[in-house]
């Protein structure tokens, strides 16, 4: 074989390699990242040393997968999380007063901020139309799917008092839940009631209030696929989980009565694919798993690590 033929072969090889490797379209293999199946995202905002403001990810067995995003360095407690799709979610951030869009790889970008969005930020919830509701002080702001604040004026979408029921007052609201009938429910620790708003119009209307939680600080709330709405009270000695109707009407059934060695001052709840409920127990710095009849599913805590103290929100996403 002549030298020229050999050089030609090498040149053809090199050109081919360049051609087949130049069509780059970035993306990771999600199965290889362990992103198959369902994933649990836990929001942690521990304001006492060691301070940590993170979103961590776990598989459906509670195994730690990684810290998705960490806001500790910028001093922004993460107060809530709302799922956009399998790979993207929106977090509400206190101190910096904004919503960030974050993907599972930890890439984050500003989603929403506004000069009138400057109070104390808590939970964020996504409505079926793609808009986002966020607790700000004793009001609730609304942003559309592009992050644009609903009102151009300083008036929030849901003010401390609003049309509908005179007794429907936002008083230290903490958690939001989208109910199956399209209404928005809000827990209030200041007046111990759950407010329910019709959010289908340009302005919200309060349609009902429920004080069936007792004077025990209702905080965590979960609109469950079984048609019920679960509310957890987190006054230290009355850490209970109650079941209401889906519309949060009428009296509650006690699903979990106080047992502080397992669940103490619950702060967040989420539904697992099998219908069981994850409960963030702030007093024990753990995440527990119970079924809808109040039986503990995982006898030893479902998740317990340095990120399960001061949990502010939990969501379950998946599966691909």
């Amino acid at each position, binding site marked *: 074989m002549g030298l020229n033929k050999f050089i030609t072969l090498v040149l053809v090889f090199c050109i081919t390699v360049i051609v087949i490797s130049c069509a780059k379209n*970035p993306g*990771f293999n999600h*199965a290889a990242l362990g992103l198959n199946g369902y994933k649990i995202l836990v929001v942690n905002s521990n304001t006492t040393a060691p301070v940590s403001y993170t979103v961590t990810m776990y598989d459906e067995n509670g195994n730690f997968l990684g810290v998705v995003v960490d806001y500790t360095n910028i001093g922004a407690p993460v107060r809530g999380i709302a799922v956009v799709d399998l790979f993207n979610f929106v977090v509400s951030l206190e101190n910096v007063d904004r919503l960030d869009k974050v993907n599972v790889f930890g890439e984050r970008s500003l989603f929403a901020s506004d000069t009138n969005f400057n109070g104390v930020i808590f939970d964020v919830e996504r409505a079926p139309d793609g808009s986002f509701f966020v607790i700000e002080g004793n009001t609730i702001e609304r942003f559309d799917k592009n992050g644009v604040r609903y009102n151009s004026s300083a008036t929030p979408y849901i003010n401390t008092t609003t049309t509908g029921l005179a007794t429907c007052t936002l008083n230290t609201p903490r958690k939001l839940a989208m109910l199956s009938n399209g209404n928005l429910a809000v827990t209030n620790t200041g007046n111990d009631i759950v407010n329910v708003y019709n959010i289908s119009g340009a302005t919200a209307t309060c349609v009902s209030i429920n004080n069936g939680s007792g004077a025990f600080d209702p905080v965590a709330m979960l609109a469950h696929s079984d048609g019920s709405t679960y509310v957890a009270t987190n006054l230290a000695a009355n850490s209970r989980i109650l079941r209401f109707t889906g519309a949060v009407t009428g009296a509650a059934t006690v699903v979990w009565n106080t047992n502080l060695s397992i669940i103490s001052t619950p702060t967040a709840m989420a539904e697992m694919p099998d219908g069981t409920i994850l409960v963030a127990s702030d007093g024990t710095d753990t995440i527990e798993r119970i079924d809808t009849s109040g039986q503990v599913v995982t006898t030893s805590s479902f998740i317990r690590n340095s990120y399960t103290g001061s949990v502010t929100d939990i969501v379950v996403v998946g599966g691909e």
Partner: protein
Amino acid sequence: MKLLSLFVILFLSLESRAQSSDISSMFEAQMGYGFAIIKNPTDAEYSGIALRGLYGYSIYNGEASNLLITANYKFSAMDNTSNDSTQTQEATFYGPGVGLMYRAAPLTFGVDYNFMKVNHKSQGTFTTESKQSFKTISAYVEYSASFDTAELGFTLLGEYGTIEKSETGMNQDQKFQNLAAFLHFKYYFGLFEE
């Protein structure tokens, strides 16, 4: 039927043009570069070094061509083209296979059926390792320059397969595609005539 007709035309055409040879078996070593895509839900693209070895046993020696049954082994070590400082993925593909090779010098055509495995190693935001098994079909074309009973040349290989959801835990199967270019060295055993 069209494919069979095309193959017959190709066979007759090459049979009339190619160099005559009579071989008993063949060994081939290949070294090159591959570019793979695993689809669903995103396109995860990998590139890296690829190695392939074949042993062929002649089952037909014609006037100007040979038909061999082959056994092969593939190996490639690839990196995800999206790797950055926060997340990396490495994939090592390997596995044996069997196939058919039709040689009509200077060209060679072949198909393989392989039993592949892939080891995934992810580091960064997500640090995990996983292994999956899948099967692939490959087709390749080679151009070779010969000297005595050896040949040097160039191989272009296309490979296609499905990684089933039972392997990954995903809701859907993943499609696997690989395009590789090799420089090859072949050595023929048995009588070899030009």
